[in-house]
C-alpha cells in the first residue's frame, strides 16, 4: 500500500526534482509545474488501493533469456563516427567545461 506518500508536492520539491533531472527552471516554470505534477501524482495514487500481496514486480513482459556472447571486441576504430555529432569535439575528444579549478 502507498501509506507513506506525501499529501502533495510543494515548490521546494519541484525544484529538487528539477535539479535531480538536470533541467534548469525559472521560478515561474517551477511554480507552474507544482499543480501539474500534483494532478498527475494524485491521479496515479489510486494504484495504492490495488492488493498486490504476493505479486512479484514485472520486469519482462515476454519471457526471454538474456543472452551471453563471446567476450571479444565486436567493433571499434570508429572514433570519427562517434564524434561526428558531438557539439564541440576537439583533437579527437569530447569536451566539457572545466570541472577542476
Amino acid at each position, binding site marked *: 500500500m*502507498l501509506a*507513506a*506518500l506525501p499529501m502533495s*508536492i510543494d515548490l521546494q*520539491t*519541484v525544484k529538487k*526534482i*528539477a*535539479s*535531480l*533531472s*538536470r*533541467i*534548469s*527552471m525559472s521560478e515561474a516554470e517551477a511554480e507552474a*509545474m507544482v499543480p*501539474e*505534477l500534483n*494532478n*498527475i*501524482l494524485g*491521479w*496515479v495514487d*489510486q*494504484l*495504492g488501493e*490495488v492488493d*498486490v500481496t504476493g*505479486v*512479484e*514486480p*514485472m*520486469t*519482462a*513482459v*515476454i519471457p*526471454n533469456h*538474456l*543472452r551471453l*556472447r563471446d567476450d571479444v571486441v565486436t567493433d571499434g576504430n*570508429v572514433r570519427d*563516427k*562517434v564524434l*561526428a*555529432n*558531438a*557539439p*564541440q569535439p576537439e583533437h579527437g575528444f*569530447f*569536451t*566539457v*567545461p*572545466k*570541472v577542476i579549478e
Partner: protein
Amino acid sequence: MTDLTDLTVAEIRDGFRAGDFSAREVASAFNANVAAASALNAFIVETPEKALEAADAADAARTSGDLKPLSGVPIGMKDLFCTQGVQTTAASHMLEGFTPTYESTVSAKLWDAGAGMLGKLNLDQFAMGSSNETSFFGNVVSPWRRNDGGNAPLAPGGSSGGSSAAIAARLCPAATGTDTGGSIRQPAAFTGISGIKPTYGRCSRWGVVAFASSLDQAGPMARTVRDNAILLEAMAGFDPKDATSLDLPVPTWEAGLSSDLKGKKVGIPKEYRPDGLDAEIAAMWDRGIAWLRDAGAQIVDVSLPHTKYALPTYYIIAPAEASSNLARYDGVRYGQRELPEGAGLQDMYAATRAAGFGGEVKRRIMIGTYVLSAGFYDAYYTQAQKVRALIARDFEQAFAQCDLLLTPTAPSAAFALGEEQDDPLAMYLNDVFTVPASLAGLPAMSVPGGLDAQGLPLGLQIIGKPLDEQSVLNAGLAIEERAGFVARPGKWW
C-alpha cells in the same frame, strides 16, 4: 490511368512486377504528393532523392530478375528511427541537426527488402503525446475534417501522427510507426487507416530513439491489413543488438492471411464499456462484434478486472523509463549544447536540457525522476510493476477463454488541435484502451470501423495472444472485408 498514389503496397508491388508501371513512376508520383502537402506538416525531412534512388535500383532489379519483397515500394519513416546520413530528431530541438552515422535495424531491413524512403515523418516529441502537438517542428494537421463546414484543424493522433496523416493523405502507401502506449493504434484510428503493434520483442529497438524501453515496439501503418502483414514481415526478426529481441523465425503473415474465423473465440472485455462510453463508439463496437460473428467467430464475454489501473500504471512506468533513457542528452556527445557564459559542467547539463526538451518531455522526466527517487521508489515504481503483473495476468486468464479480444481503439474520434492540450491528464485518457495491451506486451492492431456522425473515422482494436500476430491480422481482415471502409479525406491542402 490509375493514380499511382491511390494504390496499396500490395498493388504497387504486384503492378510493378507485372510491368504495369515503373518504380520511378511510383516514386515520382508520391514525391509530388509529398511536395504539395506542406500544409499537413507530416514530414520533418523530405528525401525525394532517396525514393528515386531506390526506385531506380528496383527498376534495374526488375530487368535483371533480382527483385526483393518491397522492390518498387516507397514508404515514410517515422523520425524516431535513426537513418544514416539523414537528420533524425525525434521531433525535438535537442536532436536538431543530429545525423546518425548508422542505420536502425528496422529501417535497414526495410531498405534491404527494396523499399525506398520518401522522408522522415513528424511525431510527438520523443514519441510523448497523443495528438502530435508536442513536436518541436510544429503540429501535424490531419487531412480529415469534420463535415460541419467549420474546417477546424484536427489532430492526426500521436505519437505516430506524421505517419497516419501521410498515409491517409496518400503521401505514402505505408510508413513505420512506434507504439509505447498506443502510438500506432490511436493515430491509425484517428485517420481511417490500419496499424499493428506486434508482440514486444518482434521488431528490434536498436537504432530507435528510446522512450520507455520495456514498452517501445515498432510496427507498420498502412491502408490495408494485407499491407501491414507485408511490412511487418520485412521489419520483424531477431537482432543480437537488442537484448530484448525475440530469437524466433518471422512467420509468413501475408501468406497466412484468412478472414475465415471459424473455431476462433473472440472475447469482449466488459471493462472497456464504462458508463459514459461515447454512443457512436459503442455502436461501432457492436457492429464489429457482429462482423466477427459473421466471419465465423464465437463471441464470449470476458473480464479484465485491473483495466482501470492500466493508465496510472503506465504513467509511472513510462516516465520512469523515459527519465532514465533521456539522461543521455547531456550536451556532450550529440545533440544541442547550451553553455551559458561562465557555466560549469552541471550548469551546462541543466541549461542544455532546459533548452532542448519541450514542456511535455520535461514533465515526464520530472515525474519519472520523482517516482524513482529515494523514498518513493517502492511506493510508486515497484507498486506499478506489481500492478503491471496483475494486468498481464488478467490477459492470460482472459486468453484461457478466447483467442482474441475486440475493443474500440480510442474513446473518441479525432479532436481539434488545441482542444485537449491544456490538460495533460485529459490527453493521457486517449490511450485508455490501448495502454493495457502495451503493458502486457501483446500484439494489437487498429482497423477502421466506420465514420461517426461528424464524418470522422473510428477504429476497432484487436488484441491477440503473445506471438499470435496472425490471428490479429486475420480478424482485422475479417473486419476490413465487412466494414467496407472506403472513405477518404477530401483534398484541401
